[in-house]
């Protein structure tokens, strides 16, 4: 008889409930300025990713796993190079957009290391960018093609813009204007996602310590008349591919 694996739950956490070091790194609810001096409030609710296996197995959409949005190198704060990892809940919206972009491109999209979520402590987070909200992706490869020419980057920039009027892309060579760009940047802006379980009248104070879990899989199963994830009765979960 094969072993029946219980689905892995992924917690939604209020970053105010995290330990001091993590709060210092994630800066929940703090205001930060972008390169143009505009102020934006950092996200407060995060998925807590317990392990590499969970990150790899958990699909946000059909073709995008959570692991693809949390790839970082030593530029990220050391604490966030280890599990559990934290990624803003709005990353789901980005995945949904990328799924549409992927369909338009007709090929797989590959997010670069440091090209998904970057914490405020990341060395590339000198100014606020949507990467710190989990709503930006740097795509370095489409299908088998590594992006390194103006023609290729312009082509996919245009394609991404055609998917939605709300997406922003950065022109080729956006950093310096020189001809050494290596990715397509897409972002949805500074979107903060607040899980349903959160009462917004308590936004300025920490929520109760009760853990909350992402809920989509159970809700979807209920809607489709299938059995829910009864193995975790009180917790609503995102299901990993196990």
């Amino acid at each position: 008889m094969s072993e029946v694996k219980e689905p892995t739950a992924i917690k939604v956490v209020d970053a105010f409930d995290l330990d001091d070091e993590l709060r210092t790194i994630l800066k929940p609810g703090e205001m930060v300025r972008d390169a143009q001096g505009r102020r934006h409030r950092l996200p407060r609710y995060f998925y807590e990713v317990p392990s590499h296996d969970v990150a790899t197995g958990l699909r946000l959409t059909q073709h995008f796993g959570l692991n693809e949005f949390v790839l970082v190198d030593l530029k990220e704060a050391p604490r966030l190079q280890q599990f559990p990892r934290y990624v803003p809940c709005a990353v789901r919206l980005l995945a949904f957009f990328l799924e549409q972009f992927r369909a338009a491109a007709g090929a797989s999209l590959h997010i670069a290391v440091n090209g998904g979520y970057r914490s405020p402590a990341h060395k590339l987070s000198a100014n606020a960018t949507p990467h710190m909200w989990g709503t930006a992706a740097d795509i370095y490869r489409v299908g088998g093609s590594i992006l390194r020419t103006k023609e290729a980057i312009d082509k996919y920039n245009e394609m991404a813009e055609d998917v939605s009027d709300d997406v922003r892309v950065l022109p080729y060579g956006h950093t310096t204007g020189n001809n050494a760009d290596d990715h397509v940047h897409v972002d949805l802006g500074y979107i903060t996602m607040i899980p349903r379980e959160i009462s917004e009248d308590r936004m300025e104070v920490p929520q109760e310590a009760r853990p909350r879990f992402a809920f989509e899989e159970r809700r979807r199963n209920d809607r489709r008349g299938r059995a829910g994830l009864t193995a975790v009765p009180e917790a609503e979960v995102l299901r990993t591919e196990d």
Partner: protein
Amino acid sequence: MSAKAKTKAEEKVPLPPQTDSVAASEVSLYRNILKIKQDHELENLGISFFDAETTIQWSYNADHYFHAASTMKLAVLLGVMRQVERGELSLESPVHVRNRFTSIVNQEPFMLDLARDADPNVYGHLGKTLTVRELAYWMITLSSNLATNLLIDVIGVQTIQLALDELDIDGVRILRGVEDQAAFHAGLNNEVTANGLLKLLRVVADHKAYSRKASEEMLSIMLEQQYRSGIPAGLPKAARVAHKTGNISTVHHDAGIVYLDGREPYVLVILTQFSAEAGRGTAVADVSRDIFSTLAGIRYE
């Protein structure tokens, strides 16, 4: 080279004392080196070695600065190990493999020419990560330019020079990463002397590159060197050489520590420069062979 010029060069060589084997060997070596320089039409040749077995240190034109080519990667490795020893970097830390760097001259970004870098082991990870240890390995063993620039980005070029200064290694000037064309055109190049590289290698060979552990890490990587047409080509097959080569269109260098059974190692640096027309020959291997023969033949009276 004309017979007249050759005769003139040979005339400069002193006659070896008949009663001193070491002095005789040194003079003989000097003559051979001059002949190799002439035969290969080298524009410049710099040599320095130290033999821990006999304690002989010998050099030729060893304070002349050459374009460092890839021998500068030894200094990068030293800088990496400095940061590791200080706890500021881990060899297991992941580094984003990305072909985009910034010139030291105008801060403009530039990319490496994929066709010129010998190492697909690093390019194959574009967009992903390799650890600091893996990058260091490919930087030395296959002379990966991409790995080198990535490591310089991690530690900073100032750290490399700081490491050299801390260990009293002069004769190695590191200003920039690889293929920074704007810096090249501004005349900003990495430069080394034979004596400078000899000091660097002696520090490593003596396990004084910050710690025994750090030195052994460096040696273990250098022993895996895959380009063997320089110093190793002039040695018996049983010799183990921890070394780093350096090649561009008009220079061919090799700098390494030679381990032979039954004796202490010797440290050897050979720097050669030639015209683009003359091209690279076997001068480094020939010098290595002569030095090996000389050291093997030395007998104290």
